[in-house]
């Protein structure tokens, strides 16, 4: 049972984002860790694996694109979702080229992110089923 618990990591320099997402996804039964400092988040990612990483794009210290690259190196199975208030087509396409799972412009409805995460989860589960 506990093996199937989805592990989610959220990085956003605005505390409200992590707080809100933690609440919503814990309620859905996930294990959620949140960070406002991307460097701290990276330290945790190096020590522990997550199924899904939700990250802001523009942050002091390290941007979401770097997080995406780093996560893919450390844990290729993890799905990365970028959320941003600076939605730009070229950034989005660059992110997709680099293998982001999805790219959501702010402001967004919690439901939208929920659906994307559910999609990412079902993808992850069916992949692991294939392996079995």
């Amino acid at each position, binding site marked *: *049972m*506990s093996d199937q*618990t989805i592990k989610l990591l959220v990085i956003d320099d*605005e505390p409200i984002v992590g707080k809100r997402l933690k609440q919503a996804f814990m*309620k859905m039964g996930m294990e959620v860790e949140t960070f406002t400092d991307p460097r701290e988040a990276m330290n945790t990612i190096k020590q522990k694996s997550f199924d899904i990483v939700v990250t802001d794009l523009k942050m002091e210290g390290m941007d979401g694109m770097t997080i995406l690259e780093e996560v893919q190196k450390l844990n290729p199975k993890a799905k990365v979702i970028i959320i941003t208030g600076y939605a730009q087509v070229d950034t989005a396409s660059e992110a997709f080229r680099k293998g982001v799972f999805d790219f959501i412009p*702010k402001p967004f*409805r919690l439901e939208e992110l929920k659906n994307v995460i559910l999609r990412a989860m079902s993808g992850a589960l069916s992949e692991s089923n294939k392996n079995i």
Partner: protein
Amino acid sequence: MNILESLKHIFGGGKTEGGEAPLSAATAFERFREVLRCNNSALELIADLGEKLSGDYIFDRQYIYNTMEGLEKAVLQSVHALNALCNNKYQILYSTYDRLTTRLDTVMENREDRDGVPVINIADTSRSHYIILGGKNAHLSQMLHELRLKIPEGFILTTRAYHDLIDHNGLREALNAFETAMEAPECTVEALEPLRHSLEQGILNAQPPDGLLSAIADQLKAIKGIFGEDLRLAIRSSAQEEDMNFSFAGQFRTILNVSPAPTAVFKAYLQVVASLFSPKALRYRLRVFPGEGHMSIAVGCYRMVESSASGVIYTVDPADPAGDAMIIVSTWGQGEAIVEGRVPVDTFRVQKKPPYTLLTQSIARKNTGLYPKQEGELGELDIPSELQDQPSLTPSQLERLAAYAMQIEIYYKRPQDIEWAIDHNGDIYILQARHLVIPATAGPKGSLADALKKYELIVSDSGSVAQQGIGAGHVHIVNTISDLNEFPEGAVLVSKRDSSNFIRVMHKTAAIVTEIGTPVSHMATLCREFQVPCLVNVTDILSKVSDGMEITVDAEDRRIYKGRVAELLAFKTATDLNISATKEFRLLKRLLDNVSSLKLVDPLMDEFTPEACETYHDLLRFIHEKAVAQMVEMGKDERRLLKDYRAVPLDLPIPTGILLIDLGGGIDPKAAGDRITFASVTSEPLKAILEGMLFPGVWHTRAADVSFGDLITSIVNVPTDALAGQYSGHNIAIISKGYLNLSLRFGYHFNIIDAYCSDMTRDNHIYFRFLGGATDITKRSRRARMIAIILEAFGFNVASKGDIVTGRSGNMPKSEIIRTLNILGRIVGFTRQLDVQMDSDAQVDRYVEAFLMGDYEIIGRH
């Protein structure tokens, strides 16, 4: 931009009201629709902002700026549109608009705490003062005025006084530098030290601004007038965010036992204000509001209650947030020592619901207590030995405290940390109430999701969220407005459709669920204001719950559970569902306070004036009502209507004598000839009314028994409107596909029905007016009363005076409008000649009952 100038431009100026010919019906209708269109685009934006506040979105500052800019433009358009409809009769709304817009700009610039009075008595405070009272005082104002609880008498030195103090003492420049420094991302207390220190010292040595001491003296005089010269004061901090969402517990200073002299109060005031800049408070601010520099402080000066016992209540047990017990802690004397852990205390665990059963108690040996010292402050005194081991609260005091605590928790919808005192007369005073902060105790993984599985779901994924949140309580079904009268504390309100009248019970409602309704209704706005978890549009909810049934509403995942879901309530307690931590959220909240709350709820009240508008929403509501009122009057000018339009007789199986004027889409184009039959009517509101009139049994044809007296009255009595020459013998219906203005004259009474129905719920309205009759005023008034009761039963706002009844309803989906118009048709038919039979008050009830039961034939059986 000078609005009045630009207006003269738009409307060509010069022409004064009443000087122009009235608009033709078609033009008036076109302009009426333009008012609706403009109002809609403004309301869409307000709804959009409001939705962001419901907790379901992540948004940023740019979004707020852009939307507010659009909103200001849209509201101005609405004012233009109403004036275009009403021949510039509402020029005054431009100054209303200016007043409200200036206020919003102040909020955007984060300067609203500088407005208003420097000193105010707590008894004179209201909603509009909250922003200058600081959080703690605002809560006390709510408890005094909204919950009607006892709080100590006193007055407030507002945030305006704080800014005056800063300016008067030349501290503004230092304060600006300080606030800028605090906004830096890497700011530390150490880096702030020189500025902090100079501000702290500057304030401690500050001189009072002009007029402040005399204003304090006036307040003291008033309090001493009641309590005598001996009274002592507690001078308490109330910073802007204090108690609202962050506890700030113990961060700022409180000075107790201050003598009631202006200079002593001012000195204590300075100490409290200076504590805004203490290293301890700054550390807290940097932690909870990183990147934010601005915070102002108000100070409350309250009479110290000579308490025999005092203490603290936690409305949930932090060790067991899901449990049904609250914790009451109490000791002899003053309670200040409790929070500091200085004296032994009694601890009681009391059940959270009536009869507030005492679950457990632990009585300490209370050998000392805190009491005011002669020279000021508090000192420890020995407790007489016979009292030391006695409980400091009696069972009945415990029960009263528990009841007050629940009232407060239900009002704020969150667990509370309450400080209270009981004086020697046994009166309970609330000294402070703030949200109880319970650390998120993350249970075992996935526990909540798993735990929820064992509860029976009544509703799943149904309806829309009007306000996020979780609430549990016993169902109280509201069918008519009078059902609100016995609304139990903490119940869940379940209703067929939503109504802004629910505001009356929102302070004691755990959650609201309606079968019909939208997240953009007035009620939804009110729910957000009162933070009442609310689901609307929940299919068939009335058939799934019954009165008294206990349910838990999760207005986040759109679920309703049977019973009390303790795990969900614990989750609510431990997580901070109120996501008010960010700058953006608080800015949006303050803007919405000034945009979307609705003071002008009932258009039939006297206070429905431009001067009373406090928000854009009020203004838009006013505009809508005045636009409707303009349309209502349209049917009166019968001569002109009959000259301007070709009126076609309506051919019905009952003799109504209605002439139709079609503004477009009200009559089937294929209908030929000089008479229109029911089948050819395509105006939806007219069709609905006619269906009601034609309903079997409604249109009773039996000649009324008119007594000789009634006959004389009918000859003598000519209603005033008729004298004014506005009505003659015709019944005219001005119609379009979605609109109806119907003027009816049957015998000696007049009836106006004005209705608009479209797919846009908030555009829809029904206006109903009935007056007159053939009999004496007593009988006519009885019929009017009967109509008023029936209208109320169908959710109308009703005003009646003598034989005049006015009813307003609206903001409901088309299907509801149609259904209600059908009922109005039945009322028109049913009550046509009923005044004759109103020979006693009992008849009113008898016919109301019959009508509501659908027994229209009762008249024939008379």
